[in-house]
C-alpha cells in the first residue's frame, strides 16, 4: 500500500506557475534565447569580431548574413548572439552579487534586531534615496569600463531592495517555533541564520531575483548606450543598440534586431517574475 503523495508548498507553487500561460511562454522563449546565445556563436560561420571590408552594410538575408552586417562588415547575427550572451551573463552575475549582499545584510539586520538592525536599515534608507545610477556612471568613468566593475557596480546598487525584503521575512520568521526549537537545541545565531532562516525565505527572494535580472540587463545596456559599459569589439545588447542608433539611417537592421532581442528578453524575465510572484505568493494576486 502506498501513501498518497504529499503536496509541498513548492509543489503547489510549481503547479500554479505551470498554469500561467505567460510565464510558461516566457520560460520557453528564455530557454531558447539562452540556448542560442550559448551554442549559436559556435555554429555561425563568422566570428563576432571578424572585420570584412568587402561586405559592409549588407542587408539581412544577403550574402549569407542572416541579419546583415554592420559598418565594419561584421555579421550582425553572431554579434547579436554574443551580445545576448554578455547581457545575460551580466544580468546573472550582478544579480548574484546583489543576492549575496542583500541576503546577508537583510538576514543579519533582521535576526539581530535592536540597534544593529536600526543602524543597518537606516543606512539602506539613506542609500535608497541616492540617485544611484549617477554614481554607477561616476564609477564607470572613474575606473574605466571593465566588465568586472560593471558586475560589482550594478550588483552593489541592486542589493538594497533585496535586503529590505529579506529583513522583513527574517523578522517574521524568527518569531516562529522552529527557530525557538533550534535555539533550544543549542544552535548559535550563525547556524540558525544559515540553516533555518535563509532556506525559509527563498520564496520572495526567488521572485525578486527574477525581477532583478532584467533590471540589471537594463542598467548595463543603459551604461553601454552612454558608452560606459562593455567596450568594443565585445558586444552587449546595449552597445549593439547604441551603434545601431548611430547607423540607423544607413542600416535599419542594426537598430531593429538588437532592440527586438532586448525587449523580448526583458519581457521573458518579467513574465516569469510575475508568474512566480503569483505562484509563490498567491495572496498578492
Amino acid at each position: 500500500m502506498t501513501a498518497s503523495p504529499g503536496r509541498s508548498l513548492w509543489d503547489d507553487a510549481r503547479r500554479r506557475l505551470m498554469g500561467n500561460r505567460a510565464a510558461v511562454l516566457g520560460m520557453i522563449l528564455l530557454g531558447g534565447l539562452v540556448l542560442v546565445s550559448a551554442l549559436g556563436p559556435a555554429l555561425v560561420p563568422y566570428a563576432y569580431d571578424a572585420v570584412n571590408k568587402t561586405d559592409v552594410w549588407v542587408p539581412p538575408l544577403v550574402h549569407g548574413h542572416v541579419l546583415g552586417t554592420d559598418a565594419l562588415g561584421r555579421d550582425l547575427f553572431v554579434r547579436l548572439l554574443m551580445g545576448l550572451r554578455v547581457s545575460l551573463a551580466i544580468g546573472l552575475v550582478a544579480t548574484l552579487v546583489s543576492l549575496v549582499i542583500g541576503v546577508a545584510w537583510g538576514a543579519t539586520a533582521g535576526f539581530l534586531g535592536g540597534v544593529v538592525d536600526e543602524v543597518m536599515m537606516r543606512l539602506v534608507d539613506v542609500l535608497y534615496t541616492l540617485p544611484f545610477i549617477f554614481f554607477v556612471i561616476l564609477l564607470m568613468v572613474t575606473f574605466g569600463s571593465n566588465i568586472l566593475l560593471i558586475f560589482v557596480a550594478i550588483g552593489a546598487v541592486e542589493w538594497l531592495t533585496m535586503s529590505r525584503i529579506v529583513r522583513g521575512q527574517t523578522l517574521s520568521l524568527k518569531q516562529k517555533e522552529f527557530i525557538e526549537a533550534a535555539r533550544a537545541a543549542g544552535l548559535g545565531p550563525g547556524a540558525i541564520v544559515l540553516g533555518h532562516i535563509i532556506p525559509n525565505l527563498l520564496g520572495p527572494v526567488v521572485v525578486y531575483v527574477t525581477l532583478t535580472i532584467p533590471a540589471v540587463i537594463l542598467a548595463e545596456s543603459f551604461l553601454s548606450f552612454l558608452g560606459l559599459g562593455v567596450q568594443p569589439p565585445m558586444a552587449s545588447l546595449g552597445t549593439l543598440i547604441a551603434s545601431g542608433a548611430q547607423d540607423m539611417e544607413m542600416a535599419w537592421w542594426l537598430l531593429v534586431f538588437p532592440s527586438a532581442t532586448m525587449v523580448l528578453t526583458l519581457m521573458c524575465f518579467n513574465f516569469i517574475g510575475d508568474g512566480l510572484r503569483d505562484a509563490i505568493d498567491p495572496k498578492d494576486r
Partner: protein
Amino acid sequence: MLRFISRRLLVAIPTLFLVVTLAFFMMRAAPGSPFDSDRKLSPEIEKNIMAHYGMDRPLIEQYQTYVGNVLRGDFGPSLKYKDKTVLQILKENFPVSLRLGGSAILLAMAVGISLGVMAALRRNGLLDYGVMGVAIVGVCIPTFVTAPLLVLVFGSTLQWLPNGGWNGGALANMILPVTVLALPQVAIISRLTRAGMIEVLGSNYIRTARARGLPLHRILTGHALQAALMPLVSYLGPAAAGLLTGSLVVEKIFNLPGLGKFFVISALQRDYTVVMGMLIFYAGLVLALNLLGDILYALLDPRVRLS
C-alpha cells in the same frame, strides 16, 4: 506633521553629506585631471593652475574647503568652462530638463490615468487586456530603444518631426523626446491607476453612491478617482528619479541642451566641480520630491499617521 517634515529633513542631511563625500572622493580617485589636454602643459603652469584651484593642498583639506563652500551655497567655478560657475551651468541647463521632464510627467499622467480608469471600468474586457498588455510591454521597452526607433520612423523616414535639437523648445522639437520620456511612465501609471480604481470601485461607499443612483461620471469624479489616485502620489519620487535617468539618454539622442547631457561629458572630462554640483542637485531634487510625495499623501489621506 511638522515633526514628520523636520525628521525627514534631518534624514536628508546625512544623505546629502554622503553624496558630497562619495562624489568628492570618487572623482579624485579617477586617473587624469581636468587640465589634461592634447597639448602638454609645462610642469610650472600646471602647478600654478593647481595652486589657483587649491588642488595642491592635501585632499582632506580640499574636502573640508569644498564642504564648507557648498554649505554657503558656493559650488565653485567649472574647471572646463572657464567663464562659468557651476551654479550658472545648473541655472542655464536645468530649465530644459525641467521642461522636458515636466511635460513628460503631465502627459504620462493624463494618458496613464485615463487608460487606467477605462481599463478598471471594463475589467477583463478587451480594452482592459489591451491596456494591460501595452503596460506590460511598455515597461520592457527602454528609452534608448524607443528614442532611436521613433526618430527613425517619424524623423528620418516620414520627416514629420525634427530628428533632434532644441530650437528654443518649439513644440515640434518637444514631441518626440517628451513621448519617449513619458512612455514608461504611462505604463506604470496606468497599472497603478487600474489597481487603485478596481480596489476603490469594490468598496462600500462606492456601492452606496451607486445605490443612491448617482450617475457614473459623478461617482468617478466625486468619489472614486481621488481615492484611486492615492498610490500615484507616492509614486512621485520614483517617477522623478526615472525621468532624470531617462533624460540622460533622451538628451543625448535628441541633442538637447539639458543637464543630463552635461553629466556624462563633465564626468569624462573630470570637471570635478560640475559633476559634484550636479550630483548634489539631483540628490536634493529626488529627496525633495520624495518628501513632497509623502506630505501630499498624508494631507490627502488623513488615515495615514506620519511617524
